[in-house]
């Protein structure tokens, strides 16, 4: 396992990782629909393998403000996960959850921030439960952490984690919505040993 770097793994098992991404994002969309009491349609998620030079501007322009919610993962799977939203999507989801009129975009107050954290937590939780079911692994996420800042600054966190083992990262973009489209982005960052565990749990020998 340790003889492989992330590039090899990502390229060889792109299809498997894509499938995990599809199922995880599907579950996450269902979770948002339930939470907001909406019927949401999901587009087919786009799974991209990006160099970290590309990662900084993959969600939005590098110095655009975005929201990032981050979880640390423990137990059978060690690593972390991020869910990223552009600000218009973040405002849309918070407004729906808080029962506000659409288009309200005053800066988030404490209550809004904690709602946003929880939205991220629920979305990533349902993604992770899909992954846990498929792999029969136990995954224990931390409490959610939130940052609202420049896209490249938030993405420096996964970039640094990927950067320790390779030069690219797997980004999953999923769009869902009714009349308004919301784009969310997932980044799953297993540590290299955990990557191997996920793949062997799915019956793939390294």
């Amino acid at each position, binding site marked *: 396992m340790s003889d492989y770097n992330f590039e090899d793994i990502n390229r060889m098992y792109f299809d498997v990782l894509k499938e995990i991404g599809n199922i995880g994002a599907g579950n996450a969309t269902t979770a948002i629909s339930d939470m907001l009491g909406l019927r949401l349609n999901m587009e087919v998620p786009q799974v991209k393998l990006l160099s970290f030079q590309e990662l900084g501007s993959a969600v939005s322009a590098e110095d655009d403000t975005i929201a990032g919610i981050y979880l640390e993962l423990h137990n059978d799977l060690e690593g972390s996960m991020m869910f990223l939203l552009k600000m218009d999507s973040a405002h849309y989801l918070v407004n729906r959850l808080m029962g506000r009129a659409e288009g309200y975009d005053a800066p988030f107050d404490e209550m809004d921030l904690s709602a946003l954290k929880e939205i991220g937590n629920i979305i990533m939780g349902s993604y992770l439960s899909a992954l846990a079911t498929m792999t029969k692994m136990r995954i224990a996420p931390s409490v959610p952490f*939130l940052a609202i800042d*420049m896209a490249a600054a938030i993405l*420096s966190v996964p*970039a640094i*984690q990927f950067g320790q083992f390779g030069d690219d990262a797997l980004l999953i973009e999923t769009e869902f919505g009714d009349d308004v489209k919301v784009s969310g982005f997932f980044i799953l960052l297993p540590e290299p040993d955990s990557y191997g565990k996920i793949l062997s749990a799915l019956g793939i020998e390294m």
Partner: protein
Amino acid sequence: MGTTVKVGMADLNLCKSPDMITTLGLGSCIGIALYDPVKKIGGLAHIMLPDSTQMKNNQNIAKFADTGIEELVRRMIAAGASKGRLVAKIAGGAKMFEVSVGSNIGNIGARNAEASKKKLRELGIPLRAEDTGLNYGRTVELYTETGEFRIKSVGKPVKII
């Protein structure tokens, strides 16, 4: 005003007066600006990790504080700068998420800042100013006409160091 040179993540470059060199959205990474005030040559490295010797995957020299700074100095000398005149300013190294202390990314920003300063000391390049740590992202701009290092953050006034 001259043109603007943009440096990406794990990247470095340089320019001469009247040009400006910038990197957008430093989070836990560090932007290391080197400047020769006589030749008015400015260089900027955007490093992600502290130490290349601890990594197996270390081909990209601009990714690490140690090899990135060495390479930037080499390129600046090749472009006509004098090593004895180089001065440094650094920014970045934030802790973007308030994660637990034991986390492997929790203190990466601080480690990046520390490793950058250590390398500058080794090379005998004086650190004139720094704006590191805390919990927010920074866009930096080095103006080669003056050596000014401007730092922009979301919801904060522009800082000049």
